[in-house]
């Protein structure tokens, strides 16, 4: 890991109770302090643990200032169990919904950034998520900021039905507007980036950057296996698999991510 990454570890959520953290990939017991310094990656097998939305933005940017924090979800279909599930997620994460967005600087450059929180109902995209992403692109266009999004999501939020499907069209159209200006959009694909989100704005980055091992795709492997009665290889839909199939531009380890993004933005803008 790069030496610059160390200080940002302080911005990651500490889990003070546990002195060690177990890597789910190689089962190594990691000293939590070191694990945080490594930005929640395994020093042994380099497994990348999922980050929360605030953590994600913290390790990539400075001076984050949230946008549209006041937007709160409704229950357009009055869908069974939606409210209690969502309330539980709100209590757990302290956020109103699964999307965090705002202004920040990256190596001093003003940017617009958004990150989804897998811990909030699987990072799913409902009306609030879609609205925040759309406003992100619109405001970036107004303020001439490049856009970064980091997704970690299972896709559309079923409980909002058609309203959530419409967010795919809405966010894709928002990218379409940004494309007419000289403003880059870099889409950062972290584990997992799937379904309705991957099939809308998240695939439309000028550059697609993935974290190692991130699962990226449309239909989940398990559903394909069930439907076609086949067995898929373990690396199916991994970032490495998608790279081999020409779907993403680069795979960058978390420790190098900020540096890569800064370099890309500089090449496209300076």
């Amino acid at each position: 890991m790069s030496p610059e990454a160390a200080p940002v570890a302080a911005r990651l959520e500490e889990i003070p109770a546990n002195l060690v953290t177990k890597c789910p990939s190689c089962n190594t017991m990691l000293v939590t302090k070191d694990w945080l310094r490594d930005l929640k990656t395994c020093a042994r097998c380099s497994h990348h643990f999922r980050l929360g939305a605030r953590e994600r933005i913290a390790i990539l940017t400075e001076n984050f200032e949230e946008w549209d924090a006041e937007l709160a979800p409704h229950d357009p279909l009055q869908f069974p169990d939606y409210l209690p599930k969502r309330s539980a997620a709100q209590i757990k994460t302290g956020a109103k919904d699964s999307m965090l967005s705002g202004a920040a600087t990256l190596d001093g450059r003003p940017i617009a950034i958004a990150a989804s929180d897998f811990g909030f109902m699987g990072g799913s995209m409902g009306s609030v998520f879609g609205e925040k992403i759309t406003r992100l692109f619109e405001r970036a266009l107004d303020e001439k900021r490049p856009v970064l999004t980091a997704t970690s999501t299972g896709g559309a939020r079923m409980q909002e039905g058609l309203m959530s499907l419409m967010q795919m069209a809405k966010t894709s159209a928002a990218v379409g507007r940004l494309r007419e200006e000289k403003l880059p959009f870099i889409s950062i694909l972290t584990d997992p980036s799937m379904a309705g989100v991957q099939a809308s704005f998240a695939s439309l980055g000028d550059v697609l950057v993935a974290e190692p091992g991130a699962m990226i795709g449309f239909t989940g492997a398990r559903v394909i296996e069930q439907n076609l009665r086949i067995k898929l290889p373990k690396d199916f839909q991994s970032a490495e698999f998608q790279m081999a199939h020409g779907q993403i531009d680069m795979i960058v380890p978390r420790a190098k991510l900020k540096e890569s993004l800064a370099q890309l933005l500089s090449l496209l803008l300076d």
Partner: protein
Amino acid sequence: MLSRWLHLEQPIVELEEKIDELKRFAASENLDFSAKINRLEEHKCDVMRRIFADLSPWDRVQMARHPKRPYSLDYIGALCSDWVELHGDRAFGDDGAIVAGFARLNGRSVAVIGNQKGRDTKERQIRNFGQPSPEGLRKAGRVMEMAARFGRPIISLVDTPGAACSPAAEERGISEAIAHSQMLMSRLKVPIIVVIIGEGCSGGAIATALGDRVLMLEHAYYSVISPEACASILFRDPAKAPETSQQLKITADDALRLGVIEEIIPEPLGGAHRDLKAMSVALGAAIEKHVSALETLSPEELLEGRYQRFRKLGDLDDPQATTAHLNGAPV
């Protein structure tokens, strides 16, 4: 009773069989049963009205998937002259699950793209059950770009249970293809009319459903996910699909109430498959009405209108907005 009919149609089909039998008997014996036949016909109409006045969302799903339901090429055949189908994405293949081309509709030349299902086992394979692959969406994109260049309105007929579900589709970027198609449609400077004619399910549907107007046939459904998949994910029981289809609010009435579509096109009594001609006339008239209205707009107005149409969709609480709901009343 054939499996080509739905359970809900059973009383109708039974009456029809009875009427047919009576007619055959009358003809062979040279007898006059016309009074009795007329009574039966009237009764059949009553039965149909009763059945179709009270379809559940799950019934609509069955109607939308009806094996006799007209598909895109049926409407194109009934509505258009000079249909010229174009093929291929110029890169990988030609997807049978999407048709794309140019045709004349009410004398006006238009581009038509549509999901296409197969009628028999063999055609179903070629059409992949109407599930578009990346190359199908890229073919549609190529034809739509051509339409925009030559100033032809675009008609998109949506009828899919979802995008192709396979390792091959993933490898060739089905996500990117769906995303790109939406972005492309948001920027094309010609009128785009979308009609959900049967199943409008999931990313495979929205991929080609970004238009200036979105219309729905009466018995079509439009949903973020199939009721079966939703029931299986949320309730761990695909058998709960019927009630899930109710909860997901996927009927044309629901979509209209949510502000997701502009108009419901009524189907002939008993459904589109009972009278393709009448259905096509209604479909053609609806398309004509909207295309004519849109043709008066400048390209900039068109794009702005289309952007705002989707821009306002969403249901959330925005304390800084004048009204709490951006659009539509909660259902």
